[in-house]
């Protein structure tokens, strides 16, 4: 965990919203669109790679865990804030997470039969400066990724 918590009140300089159906083919679309929008801040290649990977994990969670076999809506809001802070919220209206703390533990997975690594939240947490997860069973999950770019 990083010590410096990110200031959520930073002024928004630009923002975008993307709504996608929970089709796995949209995983690549989602991370490419977010990366293209963030590119206006001239991030390094490494920073952009981190953002793409974290977004991919969050969107995959919506498809694999939140909606499972059903089709649902994935809403992605990206805010570019003062101080080169990027705030990305990925929200679903799926089944929700019963125990968020447990879900965030490395290697935890509910997919014992398949090949999920259980590293999704760990990747998001490691590749961003802060990760916030709120969830209500039966209502959905909101994942917020915060990444501060170097000056």
């Amino acid at each position: 965990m990083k010590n410096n918590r990110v200031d959520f009140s930073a002024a928004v300089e630009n923002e975008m919203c993307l709504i996608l159906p929970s089709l796995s083919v949209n995983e690549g679309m989602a991370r490419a669109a977010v990366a293209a929008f963030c590119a206006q801040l001239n991030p390094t290649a490494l920073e952009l790679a981190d953002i793409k990977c974290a977004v991919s994990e969050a969107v995959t969670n919506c498809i694999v865990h939140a909606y499972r076999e059903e089709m649902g809506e994935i809403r992605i809001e990206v805010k570019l804030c003062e101080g080169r802070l990027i705030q990305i919220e990925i929200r679903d209206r799926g089944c929700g997470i019963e125990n968020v703390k447990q879900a965030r533990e490395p290697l935890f997975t509910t997919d014992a039969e398949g090949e999920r690594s259980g590293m999704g939240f760990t990747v998001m947490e490691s590749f961003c400066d802060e990760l916030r997860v709120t969830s209500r069973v039966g209502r959905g999950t909101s994942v917020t990724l915060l990444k501060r770019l170097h000056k």
Partner: protein
Amino acid sequence: MIKKGGQITYEKRGDALVVHVCGEIDHHSAVGVRTGIDDRIMAERPTRVLLELSAVDFMDSSGLGLIMGRFALVKQYGGTLAVLDPSPAVMKIMKLAGMERMVSILKTKVK
């Protein structure tokens, strides 16, 4: 531009089957990659499988599951699996998951 994910080509090197994967590996592309590789592995049962990942320019944790699944499959019949020349993107996420302690990583390309 959205790159096409997970194209595979195969090469025989002695007793080893080299599986070259290129493009992006995510949950979507991993399904096709997994099926393709598994069919080939089970048809040939090579002593060694080398997953060559130098041309993978994006990989998320779905790729970790893909590697571990093939590792387990090859181990079942007594074979071995190693990752060959991982790209920086692959290396970063493998290190994060501590996978270099479980799966051999071979590097032949000089940077």
